[in-house]
């Protein structure tokens, strides 16, 4: 069950001019959180900004004894709340309601897991990667950013046994170009008999491209969408995603309740 806590900020780690990681002491949220779920946060009690904002649970934090002590957010500064979170200082409080939404479905035991991340779309994948360490089947991360300075936590993923495929727009690290480049190659090279589950999170055009590319190779993709959300609880109907089940008309489905993870093949991308 989601809980609402006025959590103390433990640390704020700047990763670049745009990205940072905010750690909060919210064990009651963290203990329940599963990979892909989100929290609705609000840094200040006043009315500007008024509404909470949705963020993926990035890391589950543990104390030296191994007990869950909180979680962190990977934040990208794009507007008023994300700017505030970029500058938040330890000791301040962050109102956190969660965990919310549906988690990623785990891959089958013999199924490879390929995560495809663009920019801040990395956020839901660290906990997913952690949940997959014990498996024998391969886990890969296709991760694209603007430049080398925009790719984070690479060692952490590697330490979890994740094979990395990096791309940058400017070619300063990994393959130059879009993340779909190496993904395309990997799809071509992988025997049809090998079962793969794809997960994508990032800019909408990227998720659409990944879904379509994977589909041409007969594979489906779970996408984690970033709709604007007013409440996170199913109250406002702001967060809807156009979903078309086979043979049925497109329906607007609340992303905070039935998402944020959807089968990319069911999304009516033109209406999103």
């Amino acid at each position, binding site marked *: 069950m*989601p809980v609402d806590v006025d959590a103390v900020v433990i640390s704020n780690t700047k990763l670049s001019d745009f990205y940072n990681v905010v750690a909060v002491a919210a064990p009651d949220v963290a203990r329940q959180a599963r990979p892909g779920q989100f929290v609705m946060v609000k840094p200040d009690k006043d009315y500007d900004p008024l509404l909470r904002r949705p963020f993926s649970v990035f890391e589950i934090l543990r104390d030296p004894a191994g007990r869950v002590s909180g979680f962190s957010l990977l934040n990208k500064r794009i507007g008023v709340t994300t700017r505030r979170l970029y500058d938040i200082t330890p000791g301040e409080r962050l109102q956190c309601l969660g965990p919310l939404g549906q988690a990623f479905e785990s891959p089958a035991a013999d199924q490879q897991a390929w995560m495809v991340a663009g920019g801040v779309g990395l956020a839901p994948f660290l906990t997913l990667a952690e949940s997959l360490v014990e498996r024998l089947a391969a886990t890969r991360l296709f991760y694209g950013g603007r430049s080398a300075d925009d790719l984070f936590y690479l060692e952490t993923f590697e330490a979890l046994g994740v094979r990395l495929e990096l791309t940058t727009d400017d070619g300063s690290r990994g393959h130059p170009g879009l993340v779909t480049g190496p993904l395309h190659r990997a799809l071509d090279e992988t025997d049809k008999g090998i079962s793969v589950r794809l997960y994508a999170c990032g800019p909408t055009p990227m998720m659409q491209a990944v879904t379509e590319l994977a589909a041409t190779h007969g594979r489906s993709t779970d996408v984690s969408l970033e709709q*604007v959300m007013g409440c996170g609880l199913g109250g406002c109907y702001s967060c809807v995603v156009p979903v078309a089940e086979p043979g049925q008309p497109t329906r607007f489905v609340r992303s905070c309740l039935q998402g944020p993870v959807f089968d990319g093949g069911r999304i009516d991308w033109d*209406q999103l």
Partner: protein
Amino acid sequence: MSDLSVTIGSLRLSNPLIAASGCFGYGVEYADLVALDTLGGVAVKGLFLEEREGHPPQRIVETPSGMLNAIGLQGIGARRFVSEKLPELKRRGAVVVVNICGSTVDEYAEIARILDDADGIGAIELNISCPNISKGGMMFGCSLEGTHDVISAVRRVTALPVMPKLTPNVTDVASFAVAAEEAGADAVSLVNTFLAMAIDVETRRPRLSNVLGGLSGPAIRPIAVRMVHECHQAIKIPIVGMGGIMTAEDVLEFMIAGATAVQVGTANFVDPLIWDKLFDGLRAYLDRHGISSLVDLVGSLELEERTPACKSSS
């Protein structure tokens, strides 16, 4: 212990705090977080007769101390509400206020008939004020005749308390309250959202897919309080006030202006656990002022004759 109970027509509420329509889903979404039977009532998302998909995203945008919405009344329709949602609301002990909307007068009456046949509904709120749909809603609420027609048609088919929800998008809201009272309404609720617009200046595009949306939240509260005050001076039936309530003090402001009960909408997005804080604040106020029943405050606005501070001598 102070008494928070209030009465709207034949409906007795344990307290005056109702979750506002469109801001609380069908109520069941919140049942794990909020004990629904502790609320004065739950006004569910506006229902047409049939299912509706509503507008494409983007459906909300934040503005200073408020937000615009253009949801377009996405909903499951009256019949599915009665069969799929009402039983759980009943089981949870919620006082259910069903917010309904029609494209025609007959549609309002047809929905009211369905609700009248159902068991476990506390009141019908007539949404004649939704600014976000092309047919129905505010079309009726912006004309005195339309207001009268919808209310009297519904009045004829149901004995449930009928509460039209007035739009603030008119010059003289009190005249609509009077029309509602004359048509047989048991109460009026106000305000729905203010028709508004926001533009992304970088792209020069409207921020909402529907171009226009309705403004809610603290930004509208002073105007809503003024409108409740005007209606209170014009009608005898109870008023359910709303618009930007965030604190117990805001609730009191509406009640002193003349509201018997209030609805809480946008605040519920900010803090879904707001209810206990509002109850505590109301009780603390009553204790502090030595008032035993909250209803004693309704319409208790002090309007003193003003003595001119300095008499002009010339």
